[in-house]
């Protein structure tokens, strides 16, 4: 599904080149549940952004679904993001002026899907996530857990194959965080590939594969059959 081959990413800070990622080799199978852990500044978010096509590697190749996506144009990459990748962010990133339903609908609107189908899909998802009575609330009228549920609904409404979550529980209390993790893990059961970035070993430990990063390099990997 995802194949990274000697991928590096460096930033220019002042007149110095700083390597955020160094020669990453990583392959993730479809339906995998992977957590990327490491201290801050270890490059785990950069890696996630690369996988999500929000960023381009300085060198190396990235194959998604067998096709090389490194060389795609911006527009082609945007299309891949729209069709195959869903994002869940630590700070939810909901559009403040839009209601919960409209936030969920956003990817469908951008993809030019007909209003009738949009409405049906949004309603179904609102129901699945227990948000039907919150549909017309704006983000500032929702609790943290509800916001993240809206964000997850939005990330999954295009039926992506890959779900990328960057510290999805970082802004939530422990109970709500667990609820959100349960939601994400249920998606894995439906064969969605979930890649999770976290610095919390408890959260990260739940993944089937745990990748540890330090200083832009993968330093180790655990496989576990942790509870699901």
């Amino acid at each position: 599904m995802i194949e990274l081959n000697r991928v590096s990413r460096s930033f220019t800070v002042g007149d110095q080149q700083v390597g955020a990622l160094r020669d990453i080799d990583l392959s993730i199978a479809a339906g995998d549940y992977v957590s990327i852990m490491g201290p801050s500044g270890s490059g785990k978010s950069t890696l996630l952004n690369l996988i999500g096509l929000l960023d381009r590697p300085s060198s190396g190749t990235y194959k998604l679904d067998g096709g090389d996506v490194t060389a795609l144009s911006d527009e082609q990459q945007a299309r891949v993001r729209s069709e195959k990748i869903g994002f869940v962010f630590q700070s939810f990133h909901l559009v403040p002026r839009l209601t919960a339903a409209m936030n969920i609908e956003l990817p469908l609107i951008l993809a030019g899907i007909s209003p009738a189908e949009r409405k049906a899909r949004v309603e179904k998802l609102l129901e699945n996530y227990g948000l039907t009575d919150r549909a017309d609330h704006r983000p500032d009228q929702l609790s943290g857990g509800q916001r993240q549920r809206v964000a997850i609904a939005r990330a999954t409404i295009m039926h992506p194959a890959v779900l990328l979550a960057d510290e999805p529980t970082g802004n939530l209390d422990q109970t709500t965080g667990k609820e959100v993790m349960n939601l994400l893990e249920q998606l894995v059961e439906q064969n969605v590939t979930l890649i999770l970035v976290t610095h919390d070993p408890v959260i990260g430990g739940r993944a089937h594969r745990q990748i540890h990063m330090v200083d832009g390099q993968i330093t180790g990997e655990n496989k576990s059959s942790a509870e699901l």
Partner: protein
Amino acid sequence: MRRCEFIRTGHDLRANEFAPTNAVISAMKLIDIVQFASGSLRGSPARTLLMMLAMSIGVAAVVVLTALGEGARRYVVNQFSSLGTNLVIVLPGRTETAGLGPGMLLGQVPREISLDDADALLRSRAVKRIAPLTIGSATLSRDALNREVVVLGSTSDLLEVRHMSIGIGKFLPPGDIHESASVCVLGNQIRRELFGNEQAVGQWVRLGDRRFRVIGILASQGESMGMRTDELVIVPVASAHQLFNTSGLFRVLIEANSREVIEQAKRDAEQIMFQRHGGEKDVTVITQDAVLATFDRILTALTMAVGGIASISLAVAGVLIMNVMLIAVSQRIKEIGLLKALGAPAKQIRNLFFAEAALLSAIGSASGLVLGYTGSAIIGQIYPSLPVSPPWWAVLAACGTALGTGILFSVWPARRAARLDPVAALAGR
């Protein structure tokens, strides 16, 4: 493990199947673009209102100012046509500055136009009727009352040629141009001053050293191109010549048969005068059309200039839009990052910002039109004689400029938004 509440209540995520979507992914629909743009405009009402205000003031300024210019133009055109239609005017002397002619060296003044000259003009088939004019001033008196008046000597056809109308009684009688009947027609104000509420028609008045019988009163027409018909005394042209002891005409007004033969009438008049004056071109023939066209050109140019100046305010509004759009881009940087993460290509984000600017300009120009037309209507109420109405080209140009500048000045902010790095934008940098 504690299962979360919304799962426990029976919502089963498994119902949400993750089969690849069959829906055709295409470009964002236009209606959705418009809706999204209007949504973000509503999201910051104060900013939107201010920008719309700037736009609508610009459009309203163009509409009102061109309406005024157009009103002035139409006012002049109306004044000219109230003077008579298809008019050709013959006046003595050349207005050309062709240097010294042989006549001037001999101390001659240009030959005058005689009554026979005027009569001869009727030979042209393009000429419908003529009205010779002699003008002068004399003292008009009745009993002890007297005042200085402008006396116009002419013929019965003047009424038709100059589009005058008679109020009471009759105009000058038709007949021989050389006959110096002692009758006169008075302007309405003169009648009032001399006769008050008394019956004027049939009474005798003294004009200079001659007595005239009043046969008619002109209808009150107000001012027409600088000549107040209300303060005019009209007598037969031959009588006027005797009164002023002259034989030359001040003007000959010619009414052509139709608009098409105005040029023909002008050429004929020149030809006839040329022959009668022994092969000398010593008269000037002008057409009212030519004068009118000149005025028309000048006033249209003036209207356009005024409109152009007003449209500068539209450019200023455009700069304002750009400024506020740039602020909006940095305020909504996270949203732009999110749209990119959700799969919006750069082009789409650019279009969203264009749509916002276009919508803003469209609503702005619409309210500007309302404002402008209301303003024109108010001016029309205050100055009823001025036919105030904005010309269609100015309305089109104002709206076009508003839309154009709105979109043009949003190019830079929109490109800036489209080029944002998604990672940095999501982080709010």
